């Protein structure tokens, strides 16, 4: 692994020495300051029934300036690209920029370097035809459906994931589709097919329908069993499927997709599956999955870790014992059950433990569910349980939230937050925590194909365990992050890092200094 010069290196924060020597027994509650009014971010996810889901936001660097820009879906409003002009350590500052992405009917957008030219491309999920938008550099994009053989179809597309299958120079895209919107009196049971767009050389083959499909709202390629071949996890909305359930697909190179079955250990789960987040929370090398729903969220962990042989896809729900269930508002006077959408694990207080943000918001005006439903910020404690801190941290917004993204927008080593709301302006917060610990931001890169090393695992050695993150494209609610992965280091002023690259190549452990961003390049 070649560690290139730090992209940005900041001095430790002033209060660091005070917190490093005596870690607090309870998680450090971060401080977020809303910067919507001054940030330049101005977008409303609009639309009626056809836009009750979606509302995604993604972060990526569209102009190679090492700052994360934003693409925010608009529903019936055009999608907008916001170029990040934030100064390192300064206020959040974005500029709405004409990019070619200003399409209407966009529910979500995912960045991915499809053609491996090191310039991010964008997949637009739409009510109607989906589009792949080739990045031209300097935050300009052009439609590439025809050039890349991409059949955008015509559906209510609400979920997306991507992977590079072994031996391929072109990615495999999965698109999750929702209800048949033409069915007004009896829409239930009208889930339309999801699509798997596999490569045909340096373009896409005709999409393969993933039958059965059960109204997907989130998809994620993830190597749940560390076999080296990611599977496709799909969160499905039980409101609309009949005979359906959550799904895990074998996507094996050169083979037709097949579902994991109960004979293999898959256990039927039927929820209002809406968003997927993954992270190795218990440091056992296998990712946990948080899946949002209504009145009940799931935190899934493997039921059994085999000492030898392959893990079975049998997951148990530990949301309740981990205090991560987040099933109803924790502040305000509305005690009805919650509705969860985007979920994302990030270490917002740099204590070395991943925290969990959940965007919440009523579907529309369902009186049996909270109408004032605050977003959650669940801080992980040292025993692996979580505690709610959304209100104390200043992010307990009550809008009809949908998509969200947590990323460091101003290169100060603190993860910031942007949230998309239905029918109301998107909101953005700067993480202004004064006493955060050490951190690392690591960006992976390799030669074409798959320049962003999707499918790699990044590891950071802690005194008594290893933090691990899988590099993925997908999950969340109609949006995700392409760019650096963030690690909190707690008191460590330096740490050993290594990468397990998508082809299985295992890099060497190398020591890096904390509080900096690094680009890790495959040798």
């Amino acid at each position, binding site marked *: 692994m070649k560690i290139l010069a730090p992209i940005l290196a900041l001095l430790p924060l002033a209060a660091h020495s005070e917190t490093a020597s005596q870690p607090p027994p309870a998680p450090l509650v971060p401080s977020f300051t809303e910067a919507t009014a001054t940030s330049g971010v101005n977008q409303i996810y609009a639309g009626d*029934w056809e836009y009750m889901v979606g509302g995604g936001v993604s972060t990526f660097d569209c102009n190679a300036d090492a700052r994360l820009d934003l693409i925010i879906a608009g529903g019936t409003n055009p999608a907008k690209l916001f170029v990040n002009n934030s100064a390192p350590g300064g206020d959040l500052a974005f500029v709405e920029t004409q990019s070619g992405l200003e399409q209407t009917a966009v529910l979500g957008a995912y960045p991915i370097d499809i053609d491996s030219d090191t310039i991010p491309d964008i997949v637009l999920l739409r009510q109607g035809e989906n589009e792949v938008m080739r990045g031209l550099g300097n935050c300009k994009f052009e439609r590439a459906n025809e050039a890349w053989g991409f059949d955008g179809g015509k559906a209510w597309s609400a979920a997306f994931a991507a992977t590079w299958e072994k031996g391929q120079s072109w990615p495999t895209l999965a698109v999750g589709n929702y*209800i048949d919107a033409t069915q*007004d*009196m*009896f*829409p*239930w049971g009208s889930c339309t097919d999801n699509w798997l767009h596999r490569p045909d050389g340096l373009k896409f083959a005709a999409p393969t329908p993933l039958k059965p499909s059960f109204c997907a709202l989130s998809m994620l390629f993830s190597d749940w069993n560390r076999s080296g071949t990611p599977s496709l996890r799909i969160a499905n909305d*039980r409101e609309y499927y009949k*005979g359906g359930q959550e799904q895990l697909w074998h996507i094996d190179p050169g083979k037709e997709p097949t579902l994991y079955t109960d004979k293999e250990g898959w256990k039927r789960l039927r929820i209002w599956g809406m968003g997927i987040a993954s992270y190795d929370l218990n440091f056992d090398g296998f990712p946990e999955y948080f899946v949002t729903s209504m009145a009940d969220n799931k935190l899934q962990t493997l039921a059994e870790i085999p000492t030898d042989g392959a893990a079975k896809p049998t997951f148990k729900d530990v*949301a309740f014992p981990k205090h991560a269930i987040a099933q109803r508002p924790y502040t305000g006077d509305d005690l009805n059950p919650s509705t969860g959408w985007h979920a994302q694990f990030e270490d917002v207080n740099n204590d070395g433990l991943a925290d969990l943000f959940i965007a919440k918001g009523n579907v529309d005006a369902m009186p049996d569910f909270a109408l004032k439903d605050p977003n959650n910020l669940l801080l992980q404690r040292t025993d692996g349980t979580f505690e709610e801190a959304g209100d104390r941290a200043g992010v307990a917004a009550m809008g009809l939230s949908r998509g969200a993204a947590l990323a460091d927008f101003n290169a100060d080593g603190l993860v910031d937050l942007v949230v998309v709301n239905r029918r109301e302006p998107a909101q953005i917060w700067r993480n202004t925590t004064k006493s955060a610990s050490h951190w690392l931001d690591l960006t992976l890169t390799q030669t074409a194909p798959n320049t962003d090393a999707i499918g790699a695992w990044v590891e950071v050695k802690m005194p008594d365990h290893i933090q691990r993150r899988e590099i993925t494209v997908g999950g969340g609610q109609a949006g995700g992050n392409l760019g650096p992965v963030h690690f909190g280091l707690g008191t460590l002023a330096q740490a050993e890092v290594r990468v397990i690259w998508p082809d299985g190549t295992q890099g060497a452990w190398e020591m890096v200094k904390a509080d900096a961003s690094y680009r890790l390049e495959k040798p």
Partner: protein
Amino acid sequence: MQRRHFLALTGAAFALPALPLHAATSPSDTLLTWYKLVLELVRHTATYSPPVAARAFGYLGLATYEALASGTGATSLAGQINGLTALPARPDGVYDDSLVLHAVMSETAQTFFGNTGPTGQRAMAAMRDKLGAKLHEGVAEDVAARSAAFGLSVAQHIEAYSKNDGGADVENMGFPRDWPPPTGPEYWMPTSTIVQQQAPLLPAWGENRPFAMPVGAPCTAGDPPIYSEEPGSEFYKQAMEVYDTSKALTDEQKAIARFWSDDPMLSPTPPGHWISITLQILHRDGTDALRAADALARVGMAVNDGFIACWVDKFHFNRIRPLTYIRRVIDKTWEALLITPPFPEYPSGHSTQSGAAAVVLTAVFGENFAFDDATHADDGIKPRHFADFNAAAAEAAMSRLYGGIHFRAANENGLRQGAEVGSFINALKTLV
């Protein structure tokens, strides 16, 4: 007035995908088409646990029956069922019964499912507008207006009647926000890791006013076996039966358990299953609208009263579920085939209301009335054939043992309790 044109139904089983709009023009088609939507609304409205669904079916059936009875000389249920006062009489004039029913269902659906989500609201509006427009074709304006007004008046009367029965307001999906659990090994304990379900569902539901069962004198399932952890005890034997059965389930037993699982939010619920059975028969046999409404009203009231009686006993005995007992006493790793419902075990709600529905349907359609049940065809579950309603109810009861969520006593005594509830419904005079 009878409609001049009766368009043919498609011949599709009722549980199969939606009937085309043009089919719903006769009064019976109008009724069945609306009920098909109601089954979906039950499935897709978060408060619609089985007792709540049963209540809605009772009032919807009552409203449609009364709206039609007034024009045919059939006997009103006012004065026969608890607290129902005389309904509005039909003013003189010509009526279109399809439009009367459409007005009744448009209003009552909105009343009972006003809390459904945006998709349900959209579906109700589409049904109201598109079906209403279709039904309006060829009908004189004064007839249409008179029919709509009368249907609305009946619906509003029933709505007012429903408001004070004790079940109108359901908060937090029916789960109390606080629940001080009684102490003792025999008592129910939460079996789920869902926060809401740390308290039992609708603990006060037994206090609701029933339709035909005497107020304050609910039918009872009798005492359950005495709680014991002694291997020779009856309670232990029944628990071992659940455990042993679960370890040797045949494919047929699994199919039976899943066929009658009828989980809330994933199916039309147990009372909706019996409404679905009724609808399939009405559709198959082309039953006229009045008789169809009578059958639906009787089944609806029966399952409602069945759940009230059952819930009285559930919270009187407050019994432990097999999942808790077996893990505590027999095998701490045991898993039931079905999801254990979040409320006390004894008696079995599905059994009680199935017993009530079977008794009522037998009275309506006769003994040895064979039928096929395709309620879950859309979910990929194969139809099942039954020699009569009692056979179906018995299978529904036994399914709970196969599923690992009830002991035998809860099923057998629940069936008997339901049959007693049904006898009160059967005593009501309607078509005479």
